[in-house]
């Protein structure tokens, strides 16, 4: 009845090479460094953030190796306590740098900066983001901030932890000012990206794409941008104040000068709790794209998923006090913040149920992006539920500053954000570079990574519940079995990441040419060539329901999905006309 007709763009994606695409459009270094093309800026973010991830990851392996034995394998003294103290200071520097790099240079920018930049205008059918120059400025602010962070480490590595709590961060003899200045710049990069993306979604949606016909990734990016715009300035001023403390002795956070050190914690968490949603929301958006595509089924509960992103963004501003339960907050406030923390878990759970309902009775295809999404759901659920455990006031009094907290946030940050990012990277990789990676190896890597993450972080939950405090370079011997398990897990993760780096690099040069639509996605980025031309679309794509897969069928000739004419409702015979 229906005939395969290919797409409006012609039948050639896999065979004849496209004459020009955004990667080949301009070959000089300058054409990359000064590009205003959102796709190239996205790739630049991707490379920079992955480099940062590599450094942060190596530091993580140092931490885990140190903790193989109770007195510390790498940094330990020569017998006297004073020499241990000196050696352990290095450990403090290592975990501080690990945390700062992972939070500020990897998790916060990587999804909006790399995947958001690359995919968002394509999904809108637009030519670019609203402010391309601002976009490039954002990237360079990020780059300069990252370089300053590294420079500060060379000058005198910060040993405060990624949270910079006062008064220690005022007193410590290390280059806190340079580090904080770097993060301040990265923060402004984040603000400008947020403004740019929000305006883009408001003003550059094509005719026919109403708010509730947008792909859910765009809702997630929009909610993320809202948090970036509304929360980041506060941490900006907080870091300015911290710099003023050190440079001028302004005294706001310094108890010795009459200041209030807990005020720093309030300010810091007023940003940094919403910031955890800056990290997780875009990952959830990626999950909402991948699940229906690989279940060949319309997303379930579109409005609920879309609006729960906004709900998370808004409620996320009201829970920061759960980081300060035991740091001198009144019991009444503690109770209120505990209650609100319970509330914020609700919209997250709504999403999870809708994803499950989407998969229910779907024709699930277990390709790599989908495998990562499944592991996201498992890991994020563990992370979220341990978060609720911590949000319960009475439990947090016991668990605060133990390894349980470390386990919690690694489940959500690694198991959630990072796995979500990796899923998205595998999903859009063919679109970004026009090549397919080795599916089999990628699937096995995903399984190994899943095992590695659980082996690393589950023992941390247990050992934390048994009372092991966090941020210590040494520990009591009773905890050693858990610590060894955790370290083995970290090494397994390393293997998985090396494998991933290997097959992705390999695909760039030897991978099969990617078709226009390898997975059968229904949103607009699949309506253009892989990789897309400089101007994104050769003809303006027409907007439809992004989760309607009924007219997409797999065509072995191009090794990808193509549109078929939909049967008309009157059941009149359809003749192909293209």
């Amino acid at each position, binding site marked *: 009845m229906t005939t395969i007709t290919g797409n409006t763009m012609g039948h050639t994606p896999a065979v004849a090479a496209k004459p020009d695409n955004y990667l080949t459009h301009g070959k000089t270094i300058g054409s990359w460094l000064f590009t205003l093309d959102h796709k190239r800026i996205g790739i630049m973010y991707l490379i920079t953030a992955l480099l940062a991830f590599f450094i942060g990851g190596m530091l993580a392996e140092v931490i885990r190796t140190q903790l193989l034995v109770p007195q510390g394998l790498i940094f330990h003294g020569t017998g006297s306590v004073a020499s241990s*103290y000196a050696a352990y200071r290095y450990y403090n520097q290592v975990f501080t740098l690990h945390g700062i790099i992972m939070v500020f240079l990897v998790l916060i920018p990587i999804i909006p900066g790399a995947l958001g930049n690359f995919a968002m205008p394509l999904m809108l059918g637009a030519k670019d983001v609203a402010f391309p120059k601002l976009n490039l400025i954002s990237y360079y602010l990020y780059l300069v901030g990252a370089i300053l962070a590294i420079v500060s480490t060379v000058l005198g590595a910060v040993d405060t932890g990624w949270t910079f709590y006062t008064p220690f961060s005022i*007193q410590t003899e290390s280059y806190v000012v340079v580090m904080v200045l770097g993060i301040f710049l990265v923060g402004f990069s984040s603000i400008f990206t947020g403004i740019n993306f*929000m305006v883009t979604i408001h*003003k550059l949606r094509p005719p026919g794409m109403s708010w509730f016909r947008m792909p859910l990734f765009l809702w997630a990016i929009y909610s993320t941008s809202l948090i970036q*715009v509304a929360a980041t300035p506060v941490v900006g001023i907080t870091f300015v104040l911290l710099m003023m403390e050190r440079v001028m002795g302004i005294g706001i956070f310094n108890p010795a000068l009459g200041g209030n050190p807990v*005020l720093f914690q309030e300010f810091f968490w007023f940003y940094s709790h919403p910031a955890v949603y800056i990290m997780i929301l875009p990952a959830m958006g990626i999950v909402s794209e991948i699940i229906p595509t690989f279940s060949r089924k319309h997303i379930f509960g579109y409005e609920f998923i879309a609006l729960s992103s906004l709900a998370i963004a808004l409620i996320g501003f009201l829970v920061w006090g759960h980081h300060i339960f035991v740091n001198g907050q009144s019991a009444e406030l503690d109770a209120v913040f505990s209650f609100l923390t319970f509330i914020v878990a609700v919209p997250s759970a709504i999403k999870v149920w809708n994803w499950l309902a989407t998969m229910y009775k779907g024709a699930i295809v277990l390709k790599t992006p989908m495998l990562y999404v499944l592991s996201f759901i498992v890991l994020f659920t563990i992370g979220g539920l341990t978060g609720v455990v911590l949000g319960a006031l009475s439990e947090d009094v016991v668990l605060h500053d133990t390894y349980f907290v470390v386990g919690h946030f690694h489940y959500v940050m690694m198991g959630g954000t990072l796995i979500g990012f990796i899923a998205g990277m595998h999903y859009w990789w063919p679109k970004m570079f026009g090549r397919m990676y080795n599916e089999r190896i990628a699937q096995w890597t995903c399984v190994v990574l899943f095992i590695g993450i659980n082996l690393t972080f589950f023992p941390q939950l247990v050992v934390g519940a048994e009372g092991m405090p966090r941020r210590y370079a040494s520990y009591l011997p009773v905890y050693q079995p858990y610590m060894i398990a955790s370290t083995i897990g970290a090494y397994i993760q390393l293997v998985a990441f090396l494998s991933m780096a290997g097959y992705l690099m390999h695909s760039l040069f030897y991978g099969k040419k990617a078709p226009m639509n390898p997975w059968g996605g229904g949103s607009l980025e699949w309506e253009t060539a892989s990789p897309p031309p400089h101007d994104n679309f050769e003809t303006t794509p027409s907007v439809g329901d992004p989760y309607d897969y009924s007219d997409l069928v797999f065509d072995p000739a191009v090794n990808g999905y193509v549109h078929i004419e939909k049967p008309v409702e009157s059941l009149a015979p359809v003749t192909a006309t293209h």
Partner: protein
Amino acid sequence: MSEAIAINPTEEQVARDHLAHHFDTPQQQFDAGTLGMWMFLATEMLLFSGLFCAYAEFRATHPDVFRYAGQYLDPVSGLINALILLTSGLTMALAVRFAQTGKRFALSLCLALTMLGGVGFLAIHAKEYFDNGQAKLLWGTHYAPSVGPNGKPVAPVTGLTALVARPKPAASPGWQSLKSLGKAGFVVSHSAIMPASVGPSGVAASQKPAAAENPFQPANVQVFFGIYFLMTGLHSLHVIIGIIVIGWLLIRSLRGEFGPGYNAPVVYVGMYWGVVDMVWMFLFPLLYLIH
């Protein structure tokens, strides 16, 4: 680009010349810019809001300090500055209007007047800062006035000066006590932070810098001046940036670049200047009119 003004064909061409490739119409481009600018200004407000929160926190916990220290500030110069900024806000609004209607001379004049207002504001403020410096009405350990707001002498604050030195690791009390603990065995759950009775700097933090001679001076007045300098300093920084940007507009306007077809930069800077004005309308009563 306001609706009321008819755009003739050449101006329409000007508008199209300034259209970036990813927008469909000049109107869409202008709206996107306006929305972006509003958001940016919202983040500016949030930047200040952190300081407003700090202000609220300290004012709630140290009302006596605020009432005492507020008397040092001169409400008259604060008020004059408020009037100057209001006037410059008016000239900036007129500038926007003249840009839209294509009155180029009036536009340049208004921009120049706005700049003048900004410079006048800074001049008065600099004088205040200078006087504060002379009287040692400063933040942290630099706070050491010799007369109180009532004109009576106060003894210099000595308690605070002892606290300025940041301990070097080698000499830090944490180290010393660790060394002395050396024999106590391996597992020492000890941090470099001293017990509360000693204070985090390792120096007895007896917060009684107030001088006996002036019984009205409460403890921790220096905190007020810390907040005062932060808030007004950040605001002055915004005024300086505003003056620079308006100067750039002035040059472009003298070159005749703005008219009904293209005036977006004037509009955006006008919005910015409005917010800078508004912040002062909050700062002035909060800092200068405490009693």
